[in-house]
């Protein structure tokens, strides 16, 4: 009952307000010219756009006011405030997926222990990365690689030369590298990334887009050489889990926390966003709010409060990855077996995600 009443009341108020506003608008409209009466097209469009914009802002305000009123009323009546409505997004209306990993799945953990990354993730082996490029590489490619080298500890750049990738895999295996990163550039712009987990791990092929280098980021910082912390967000399904572990195996598993350097891989709608930050904890002195100050004015006038805040500074490249295929075994374009390939027939719904 109470709920219904509450709902109805603001609606009524809103309606009244609308009526008033409507009458006022009507008066205004009589005074001003209707946009449709303007003969000049450019002018008409401009006026129309203005009117439309005002209407939109009005509507937003009204909504916010109604919400605030409802909240206030609920507080006055001593009821619980109405629940904050959660906007419906594509992510939270995602198609149900049976492959999403569950925390109570025993098979998952045994599978994890047995997979190709486990010896790195258990710190039995220290990751050692070989970075190379496609055959022709210039301008943004080398710059990107330089930044990657600063992001990933224990990474070594090797010139591609004219070697085949299979030969490079063989070489890296002999030199006890744990993974290979190949940056593929097209028209002097990096556009694909190949991650190969070595000895016999999977090979992931990503599309790389929206690359912003360090010097193009405003107020960027310069990264330190500490081992970074790693944040992997939203890798939920089996495939996502596997890709997440593949990415995790590029970084050392013992971050130096006092270095305060974070590398983030954030998955959203199958796009993996890469960010690289430095952070700092600062104690910030803030003046106590005026209301409180009145209450405490007896004690002292210049009362300040210290608050710990974290500040972020972005450094290093910024890019977006999208998984194209995950291949079983090391790179083999001809005879490879795929664990997952993106096929056009999968794209029948916007709400289906694979990672």
């Amino acid at each position, binding site marked *: 009952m109470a709920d219904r009443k509450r709902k109805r009341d603001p609606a009524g108020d809103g309606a009244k307000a609308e009526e008033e506003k409507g009458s006022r608008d009507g008066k205004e409209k009589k005074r001003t010219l209707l946009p449709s009466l303007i003969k000049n097209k450019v002018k008409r469009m401009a006026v129309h756009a203005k009117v439309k914009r005002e209407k939109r802002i009005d509507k937003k305000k009204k909504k916010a006011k109604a919400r605030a009123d409802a909240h206030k009323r609920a507080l006055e009546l001593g009821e619980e405030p109405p629940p904050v409505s959660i906007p419906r997004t594509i992510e939270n209306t995602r198609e149900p997926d049976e492959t999403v990993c569950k925390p109570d*799945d025993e*098979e998952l953990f*045994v599978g994890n222990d047995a997979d190709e990354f486990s010896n790195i993730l258990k710190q039995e082996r220290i990751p050692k990365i070989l970075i190379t490029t496609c055959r022709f590489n210039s301008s943004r490619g080398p710059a990107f690689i330089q930044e990657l080298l600063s992001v990933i500890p224990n990474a070594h750049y090797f010139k591609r030369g004219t070697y085949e990738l299979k030969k490079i895999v063989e070489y890296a295996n002999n030199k006890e590298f744990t993974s290979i990163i190949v940056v593929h550039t097209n028209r002097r712009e990096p556009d694909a990334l190949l991650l190969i987990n070595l000895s016999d791990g999977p090979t992931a092929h990503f599309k790389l887009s929206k690359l912003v280098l360090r010097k193009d980021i405003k107020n960027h910082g310069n990264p330190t050489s500490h081992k970074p912390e790693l944040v992997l967000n939203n890798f939920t399904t089996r495939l996502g889990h596997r890709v997440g572990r593949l990415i995790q195996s590029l970084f050392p598993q013992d971050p130096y926390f006092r270095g305060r350097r974070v590398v983030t891989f954030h998955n959203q709608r199958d796009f993996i966003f890469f960010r690289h930050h430095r952070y700092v904890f600062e104690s910030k002195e803030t003046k106590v709010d005026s209301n409180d100050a009145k209450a405490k004015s007896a004690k002292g006038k210049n009362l300040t409060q210290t608050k710990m805040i974290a500040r972020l500074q972005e450094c290093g490249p910024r890019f977006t990855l999208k998984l194209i295929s995950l291949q079983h075994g090391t790179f083999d374009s001809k005879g490879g*077996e*795929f*664990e*997952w390939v993106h096929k056009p027939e*999968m794209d029948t719904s916007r709400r289906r995600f694979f990672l």
Partner: protein
Amino acid sequence: MPRTTTVECPGCPPLRALTTDVLGLVKVVEVREKVGMPKVVETWGPPDASRSVVAASLADRKTNPLLAVARKNGLVEFLNPLNGNSLATVKVKDSVSSSNSTEDEPVAGLHLLGMKGTKPSSKLNKFLMCTTKGKACLRSVTVGDASPGSSLVDSPITWNVCGAGSVLCSSVDGNENFALFGGKGVEVNVWDLEKCSKTWTAKSPPSNSLGIFSPTWFTAATFLSKEDHRKIAAGTNNHQVRLYDISAQRRPVLSINFRESPVKVVTEDLDGYTVYIGTGCGDLASFDMRTGKLLGCFVGKCSGSIRSIARHPRLPIIASCGLDSYLRFWDTKTRQLLSAVFLKQHLTSVVLDTHFSAEEIESADQPSDLQANDHSEVENEEELPPKIRSKISRKKAHNKNKADKISREAQYDEMSNDNERTTIDSTDDDDDDVLPATTKRRKSLGGNEKPPKHKKSKKSIG
């Protein structure tokens, strides 16, 4: 609400499939209803990566069925496919390798023989095994219920299939007289199993018009029909499907290119000319090997390499599984996805237990008359849809689906009836054998009188 398109899977007739995966688990998937969704019923074995299954074979008999799995750690294990009990274990090493080699050789192919045998002996089971290095071995194992320990009756017959290269695929023909092997650097060769002698070897096709010779690399091969050992369908790593005819020539009679990823599995149909092929990037297609024409692709959301395909001997159904860890059932005629079940691990092989039908379970639970009533209800429903359809257009699709489902049900029912008739005939023979109680089918618990009675009641209605 957001509009989401969900493709409704029509569902399968009663089925029982066993899958093996990289963690060494054997999972049993069953469909119990007349037309229903498959569910994982049982999981056998502890998950352990070293016990990863490399090859599996099922002796699909009415009585005393046997499942053999070759594991990564060099063991061949024999299981009872009804309850998962381990019956015997054999080491690959002491049967295949000669004295001095120490390391395990991975098994490339494993085939249980004695499917076709006139009288399936309960104790002795012959099997053919082949390692990747080309050592084939024919031996038998006694399967006892009491102890999992193995006792071998005869010394294994061992021979070398190839000198160099690695064997990747092998197959045994329907009469179990011949076996074929092929692999990387190994041309398809046929062996007589009785004499253990090579009877035929293929010859690689000539280099093409540009003078480019493609190296031999067979990834899958099978005999085209059960009766005839002379026709062989093979798939190569450079995405070709080939047909060899032993009686005609040594080079392939027919060679078809299919897309751009290696053929990983080739499975023959019952009709003797259709083959189903699965590729490394998840394409599943069927070919008519008489003409070399692509009959059609099985389109679904299949995204990982296909490792194994199994054809049901009576129902028009194939099961496929692979690295995307789904087991999928397809209709062979319409090439429609009937249902898919997620099994969590990379699957290595699937076998179908064909002597399973849902009625076995139902008949054990409830009297057969009740079931007959059910059937009549279904028939009544069949007449209903047109009326509703005229009323509401929105429900049309749904009803159509239902009607479709019902017709499908009826179709499968007919088939399973046929199936029953044949199986009933065979039970009389089987009862003479002395069997260990545990290996008896569940059906025998229900009694032998029931199924015929049930059938009669159905007839009286129809």
